[in-house]
């Protein structure tokens, strides 16, 4: 929930591990302690969605979570994220949007040795959309107050052996029955592609069909519908840019249109009665569903420029549950 800086500092003083999201100036006023953070002024709270530059959104991790370690990881040490993950626990990460490490993690994540053997959950930090050209997203190491725009901040969190951390997602979309699209390289932009096994220009395909760019391309990864959201059609380079990489070899189809984006999102959240230890939601869901109002939400958190559920996702709500193991 949203806290004033004074109240957030009081929580930090208690020593419990925290995740904090907020405007850069607000995060910079927090005392040192057991927390990590990232920049965004957009939040989803129990009282609705909002933009708030003065308060910070604090996720107080449950009492049986202990922060083993907090630190930055650079682009040449991505393997450390799964390699140094706790035996019983999870890694909570925040990545600055638009940075080289954002691109590198997005492309390499699924190939990091052991990535699926310990939950890695988190989000991509952003800025106010009106300030994209003026400010850069940052992530914070609360232990020493350091901030960076080109590394990932990681909290390696331990839980008792009786607890199972489990990542879940809420994705509104499903694949349509449109053309099957495949791409030769794992990349954030596409020019060449195969459309139903015929080689084609994806730029030509997207422009000639006037694709609705609000509807992501969806890859079916062993039954999980994984979105890749359109960023823009780039006339200059005759390519199409995305907010996450298209994975080489995966068969994509564009999503089925939603009759009521907002209603579909609220219905899916309501139908998913989880009590997350951490959750976040995509800024495209926030914008397209018009969540900047008083609509009460049961799953809250920062509004993000990308969601991490092992790899980078788009237009998805991501959450982490801590489940008691069966005796």
């Amino acid at each position, binding site marked *: 929930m949203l806290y004033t800086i004074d109240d957030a500092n009081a929580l930090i003083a208690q020593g419990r591990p925290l995740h904090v999201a907020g405007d850069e100036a607000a995060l910079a006023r927090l005392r040192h302690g057991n927390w990590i953070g990232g920049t965004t002024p957009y939040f989803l709270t129990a009282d609705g969605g909002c933009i708030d530059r003065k308060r910070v959104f604090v996720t107080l991790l449950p009492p049986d979570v202990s922060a083993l370690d907090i630190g930055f990881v650079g682009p040449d040490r991505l393997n450390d994220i799964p390699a140094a993950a706790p035996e019983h626990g999870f890694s909570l990460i925040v990545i600055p949007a638009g940075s080289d490490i954002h691109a590198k993690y997005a492309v390499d994540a699924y190939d990091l040795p052991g990535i699926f*053997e310990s939950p890695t959950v988190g989000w991509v930090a952003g800025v106010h959309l009106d300030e994209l050209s003026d400010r850069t997203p940052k992530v914070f190491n609360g232990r020493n107050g350091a901030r960076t725009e080109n590394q990932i901040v990681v909290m390696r969190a331990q839980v008792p052996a009786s607890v199972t951390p489990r990542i879940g997602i809420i994705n509104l979309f499903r694949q349509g029955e449109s053309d099957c699209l495949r791409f030769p390289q794992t990349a954030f932009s596409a020019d060449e592609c195969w459309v139903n096994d015929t080689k084609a220009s994806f730029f030509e395909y997207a422009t000639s069909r006037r694709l609705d760019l609000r509807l992501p391309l969806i890859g079916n990864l*062993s039954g*999980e519908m994984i979105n890749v959201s359109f960023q823009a059609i780039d006339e200059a380079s005759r390519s199409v840019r995305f907010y996450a990489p298209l994975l080489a070899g995966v068969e994509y189809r564009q999503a089925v249109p939603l009759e009521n984006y907002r209603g579909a999102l609220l219905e899916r959240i309501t139908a998913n009665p989880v009590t997350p230890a951490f959750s976040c939601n995509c800024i495209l869901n926030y914008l397209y569903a018009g969540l900047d109002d008083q609509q009460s939400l049961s799953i809250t958190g920062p509004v993000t420029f990308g969601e991490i559920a*092992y790899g980078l996702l788009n237009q998805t709500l991501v959450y982490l549950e801590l489940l008691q193991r069966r005796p």
Partner: protein
Amino acid sequence: MQQIPPPSDALWTKLVSGSITHKFGLFAANMALAHAMRMVAKDPARKPAAVEDFHRFCSKYAEQVADELKALR
């Protein structure tokens, strides 16, 4: 303690080669299987490595996937 089939069981090869399909209840299991399948699709010679990776994953999460694996055999 939940048991899963040994790596030599034909189930694993069928899963990573896509000859049987299944959506697990565990998000991570689907992502790990999809990664193993992509590995095999890109280079069939890596099937043993894909089986090893996915078996190791399922060993760690046996409590959450064992019943589904049993039903698939």
